[in-house]
């Protein structure tokens, strides 16, 4: 009967298929985006940016053949969601109603109970072939009086229906950390994204964090973001490079630009090393940093000088007082980066530092002072994590770094702790102090230098019109 051999048609859904978030940085954090055909939870208190995040994704994924559906439940009136989204750049009015469809299930839910949502989605699957479904807020479903058993049954049916069909779902909600253990939707979710806002005195810090992502690696930890007219502007947290490949091979010594100091340091700083210069106000930290920077420029290197206290005009005056023409230095490769400590956001400054190093070919870097960075951040541990990974990146790229740190502010516990932590992550440690025996005299001591036979003695240190020098 059958003379032909039947051919087996094989259509395999791409197991690694992703739904992009519409935000390249978020996709980077998520290892490429959300898994397709998944159930995802975007959690966060009101005002953390959940709706914007979801809307940005919907407009990015808008598809003429398969609409995306945005369902509001009991917490947010639909009119508010729609009118708010118009303010963003990604909003395109002609996609509404066709490619992106909104539906308010508030009254259906309060009249018929939570099953109204399942019935609506079932109907939508059969009549609209939706590609993405957003439920805002899913947590509000719990406000409908249900026993925990009813909740489990409801979530199981809801998840079963969504998993059966080729659709990616996003459940937004004002969930707290405790809710993760309490509510069954977290167990069925393929990914959990948390958005958080931490109010500081002058501004808010916002974070995105991945709590769960099935079947894929992701970038852990808190990633800062801002909300702009373009949506969420994210600064993915830096991760220390696994292999700092050039690190070991850099045996070249760089002159510090401070006469006498190279001799104390066995010939100068190793290329790619990090040196922490600690001292009280006026001890000469900025002068050493500037001389190190200017020495690099004289040697034809690109140098980045980051400062949080003095604005560029003040810094240019300081350079001029060393007898050097600041304009000439800037023409020859000196980059001055100033950030006011009041507006300083560590994540954005880190992005700027990286851009300068990557695109500007920077070989020397001065951060004056790292304590200002720590002071600007709400979470000191985060600053340390940042600096640690930054230093690893500098080392891997052969960038030689000086970090300055103000010491001895009343010898408080936190100041000493900071010193210990910063010194731990630095290769070299230099201490500047006022002499205990001679009034008005400064001293310098190389406390630590990795891989070098440095001098340990306390030496006298002078600063005059020509700059700083070891005497």
């Amino acid at each position, binding site marked *: 009967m059958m003379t032909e051999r039947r051919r087996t048609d094989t259509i395999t859904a791409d197991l690694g298929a992703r739904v992009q978030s519409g935000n390249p940085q978020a996709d980077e954090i998520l290892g490429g985006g959300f898994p397709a055909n998944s159930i995802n939870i975007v959690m966060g208190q009101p005002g953390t940016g959940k709706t914007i995040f979801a809307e940005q994704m919907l407009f990015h994924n808008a598809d003429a053949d398969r609409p995306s559906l945005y369902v509001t439940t009991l917490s947010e009136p639909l009119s508010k969601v729609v009118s708010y989204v118009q303010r963003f750049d990604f909003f395109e009015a002609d996609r509404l109603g066709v490619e992106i469809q909104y539906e308010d299930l508030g009254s259906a839910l309060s009249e018929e109970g939570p099953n109204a949502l399942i019935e609506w989605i*079932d109907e939508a699957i*059969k009549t609209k072939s939706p590609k993405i479904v957003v439920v805002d807020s899913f947590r509000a479903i719990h406000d409908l009086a249900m026993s925990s058993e009813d909740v489990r049954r409801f979530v199981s049916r809801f998840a079963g229906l969504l998993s059966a069909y080729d659709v990616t779902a996003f459940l937004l909600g004002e969930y707290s950390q405790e809710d993760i253990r309490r509510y069954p939707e977290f167990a069925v979710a393929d990914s959990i994204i948390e958005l958080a806002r931490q109010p500081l005195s002058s501004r808010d810090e916002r974070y995105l964090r991945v709590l769960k992502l099935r079947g894929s690696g992701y970038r852990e930890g808190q990633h800062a973001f801002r909300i702009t007219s373009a949506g969420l502007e994210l600064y993915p947290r830096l991760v220390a490079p696994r292999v700092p490949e050039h690190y070991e091979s850099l045996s070249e010594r760089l002159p510090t630009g401070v006469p006498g100091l190279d001799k104390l340091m066995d010939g100068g700083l190793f290329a790619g090393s990090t040196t922490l210069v600690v001292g009280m106000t006026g001890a000469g930290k900025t002068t050493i940093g500037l001389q190190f920077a200017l020495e690099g420029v004289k040697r034809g290197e690109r140098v980045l000088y980051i400062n949080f206290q003095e604005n560029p005009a003040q810094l240019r005056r300081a350079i001029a007082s060393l007898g050097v023409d600041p304009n000439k230095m800037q023409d020859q490769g000196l980059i001055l980066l100033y950030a006011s400590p009041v507006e300083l956001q560590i994540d954005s400054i880190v992005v700027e530092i990286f851009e300068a190093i990557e695109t500007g070919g920077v070989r020397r870097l001065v951060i004056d002072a790292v304590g200002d960075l720590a002071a600007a951040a709400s979470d000191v541990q985060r600053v340390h994590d940042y600096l640690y990974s930054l230093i690893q990146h500098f080392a891997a790229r052969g960038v030689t770094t000086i970090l300055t740190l103000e010491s001895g502010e009343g010898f408080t516990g936190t100041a000493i702790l900071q010193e210990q932590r910063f010194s731990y992550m630095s290769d070299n440690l230099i201490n500047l102090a006022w002499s205990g025996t001679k009034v008005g005299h400064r001293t310098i001591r190389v406390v630590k230098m990795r891989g070098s036979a440095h001098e340990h003695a306390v030496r006298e240190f002078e600063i005059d019109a020509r700059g700083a020098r070891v005497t």
Partner: protein
Amino acid sequence: MRRVHEASKIGPRPESQLQTRLSAATSSTGGKALILVVERDPHVRELEAYFLNEAGFGVEFAADGVDALDQARKLRPDIVITEVLVPKMDGLALCRSVKQDPNLRDTVVLVFSILAVQSRAREAGADAFLMKPLAEKRLVDTVRQLLKLRGKWDHAGDTA
């Protein structure tokens, strides 16, 4: 609003828009093509039935492999669509049994699974493999294509 169907059978529906595009999707008995769906997941089963009915096919269900083989022998469906993970006899064993049964040699088997087992499905003699989740266009297109191919085989058999 439509309720989720829990019934194991879904009767024929009135002709839909989709059905008018349907060509030659009829079984040898002259009616609409009959599909036996072997599936345990109630949501997949219900959606699968809905979309296949909409496309103009008759649908019968079996919830396990043994029941499926019995029904296949009784009903002689045009297509068996089976998940691999079904009780009593898995979908691949079912596929082999259908293919070995001389009375069912005209029955096409489509393995439709959450597992990426295309090569095992091919070894078991399946005519096609589709991976879940359900996407109605992909499913209905595959079913139509399989029926069309089968029509050609039948034709080849007649003229041989």
